[in-house]
């Protein structure tokens, strides 16, 4: 019985380890994700709903951090070196509408970089819970 459980755990563990960077690869790997992050940042700055939020942001640094975060969240071999989401968005009084604007801008960037819809949703599913830390209003 114990052996079966152990074997089961091993299989599950292996599957989990193998599945780890699947999304990262499905999204096109390092370069594609960097491009998606950069395009997303462009979309933020062009979005009248949220562009003012970035008035005092160093966008070059922001692009790098966003790329790191996307890569990390997708399961890629990257470290996110920025501050956590709660800290970063503290005092910005962001609403669900702002959060959803961000989602739409990211979707647009993924469309542009030919990420299939189902893959986009796998990625968004990992980002969605950040709403709890980002939306404070």
């Amino acid at each position, binding site marked *: 019985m114990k052996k079966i459980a152990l074997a089961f755990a091993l299989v599950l563990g292996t599957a989990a380890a193998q599945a780890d960077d699947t999304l990262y690869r499905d999204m096109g790997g390092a370069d594609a994700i960097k491009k998606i992050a950069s395009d997303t940042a462009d979309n933020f700055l062009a979005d009248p709903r949220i562009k003012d939020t970035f008035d005092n942001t160093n966008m070059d640094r922001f692009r790098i951090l966003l790329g790191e975060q996307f890569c990390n969240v997708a399961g890629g071999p990257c470290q996110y070196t920025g501050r956590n989401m709660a800290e970063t968005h503290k005092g910005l009084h962001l*609403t*669900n*509408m702002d959060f*959803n*604007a961000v*989602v*739409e801008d990211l*979707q647009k960037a993924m469309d542009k970089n030919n990420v299939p*819809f*189902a893959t986009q*949703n*796998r990625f*968004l*599913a*990992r980002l*969605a*819970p950040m*709403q*709890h830390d980002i939306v404070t*209003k």
Partner: protein
Amino acid sequence: MRFGRNLVLFAICAAAPAAADETMLDKGMDMFDSGKLLATGGVSALEGSGGGGVTTWALISGYGTRDGIGANAHGTYVSTGDYSLWTGGVSVGLFDRVELSYTHQEFDTEKVGALLGLGEGFTLDQDVYGAKVKIVGDAVYDQDSLLPQISAGVQYKHNDRGALVRAIGASSNNGTDYYLAATKLFLAQSLLVDVTLRETKANQFGFLGFGGDKNRDYSTEFEGSAAYLFSRKFAVGVDYRTKPDNLSIAREDNAWDVFAAYFITKNVSVTAAYVDLGNIVLKDHQQGAYVSLQVGL
């Protein structure tokens, strides 16, 4: 005449997006924030509450976020071969928390009306007043937990053919349904799932009154839906709904449908379905087309 009224309703539906143009929005309609993601307001179900085709979901209809309000109008036509059904209604979503709806329904007996001695094209009309409150959870954001969005709701239904529905054995022409709905978007799977439990006495959604000679009391009925999102604008799904069987003069079956919903914009969506309502008075296999147009903010 009846057709004329429905035509007017459709005209109102069609005119609404034009009326709500940018100038109006600019003039202090900021409360209509249209901030929800496309399709996450669901569509108006048969009884006017946010949901699928014949099922009611936990989602609050319209595109208002928790900081705003949303509104929705719909017109739906169902043809099952021997009968047809028109419904038209409006709903508002308040702060993504409360949904209020009103829907008028006309069930047309067509040729069966003559067979029953009521006259061809005899209609049974019903008004449905709905209220829904989100209790817990968020179907979209809570992707890190299995907790669905759970809402509780009521639908008060008033059928205008009191004498007739009592003559066929119904206890009343008024009824109140109570439901508890759980809806979850499994985003990583692009799958939306709903399970709803309904306490109801309604015979054929209320068109044949409430309660009957076989059973006067509430029954607990089940509604379930699953929809797969093919894109941000397009979803295909299936609804299943059990119904009471209270009248001895006419057996009542469960209902199901297969639907496709196309969200053209946040303001306009179209739902088309193949619906099977089973036996309805004298006629088996009542199945056919379901078409719904929705406009809103």
